[in-house]
């Protein structure tokens, strides 16, 4: 038990080193437009959080109800993030749709 905790701790430190190292690479220069820096940082953070939750917080041996509680908070945050970002990502992005033609009934009233 104690040994497995130590292994987790060591893994966490490795992941920390990895995320710091990744921060000094400008991924956008090589793979533009995909925000790889953010993706990698977030993925490593999620991995670390999972390790802490599953082993340090012994979620792995807790009941399913407890796991559901733990997931609920994250899920709700995801809901907020996805729907809010859906707004921001399409905000100043008027597509051709905006300019493509006009509704019929308006043409009738002006032409």
């Amino acid at each position, binding site marked *: 038990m104690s040994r497995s905790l130590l292994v987790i701790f060591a893994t966490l430190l490795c992941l920390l080193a990895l995320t710091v190292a990744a921060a000094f690479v400008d991924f956008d*220069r090589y793979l533009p*437009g995909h925000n790889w820096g953010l993706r990698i940082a977030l993925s490593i953070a999620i991995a670390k959080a999972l390790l802490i939750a599953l082993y340090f917080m012994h979620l792995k041996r807790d009941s399913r109800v407890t796991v559901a509680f733990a997931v609920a908070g994250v899920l709700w945050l995801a809901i907020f993030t996805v729907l809010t970002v859906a707004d921001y990502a399409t905000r100043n992005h008027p597509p*051709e*749709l*905006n300019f493509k*033609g006009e509704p019929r009934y308006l043409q009738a009233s002006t032409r």
Partner: protein
Amino acid sequence: MGDQTPFQLLPENASAFSHASDALTLFVLGVCGLFTVLIFVLIVWFSLRYRRKSENEIPERIEGSILLEIVWMVIPFGLLLVMFVWGSKLFLDMKRPPTRALQIDVIGKQWMWKIQHPGGQREIDALHVPTGVPIKLIMTSQDVIHDFFVPAFRIKQDVLPGSFVTEWFIATKPGNYHLFCSEYCGTSHSRMVGTVTVMTPEDYQSWLAGVVPDERPARAGERLFNSYGCIQCHGKIAPTMAGLYNSKVPLSDGTTVVADEEYLRESILAPAAKIVAGYAPVMPSYSGRLSDEQVFQLIAYIKELASATTQPADHPDAQLPVYQLPDLPPANRLPTRGQP
């Protein structure tokens, strides 16, 4: 309003949207009315029909019915979908100003509306428009959030500080109509009202002729363009303005945006936010150095430059022009990202 009766039950119908909106209202009202009556009648009927006759009465057990549940989930949902599609279609129209619209600048501030026509005519808390012409309002606020609401046109749009929003309509019926600020904006919110006067095109022309115009915004913008030194860079080491408005601009992060009013505003006040592909982020911010009105003027000038070169075709299915990056000497260009 002078020509309105002191009491009325329904608002005026004075724009192309108001008829379309009322038709949709009628549909939703019909559906809702049907269900309201249904529930009311059932409740009253059951309450009378099955009222308790003796204290010891024990009614039979009814567990429920999956079939009924499905029926009263699916049928309402179908009707809701009709509302959703119909409402969204009309909303889409409300969000698509035609490119040939007459463009009028609106600035909201506590607690008045300042309006300037493309010919330079200014109005406060009043807006004169002709019938039958698409009018596009380009709006911003100097302080808090306001809202440009004309009930007779069935249009409403929050006016935000720090960005441009648009709203458009075609007026159909001459008359005077209320203009309300509809987003709470402080002490005199309820006094931030005005009048929209709709005139026949002939009356509108004579009204225009009767107002002494200020300098045309586009003209003022041209002077600003020169006096602030924009002309030193743009077209040389910075992207040219010709043909920019309403074209698709490739950005350094690989995405593309349409150069609408909001994009132009942002590019003047926060140039670092969106960098045109291939250019260095060298432009200083003009935030705090230009008033909202001066930004309007610069944009009016940029629009005029665009119409001098390529104007997007105004027929249905027209494609937006792609912004042409002018050829620059290599010294001025940055390596495009992704191609080291």
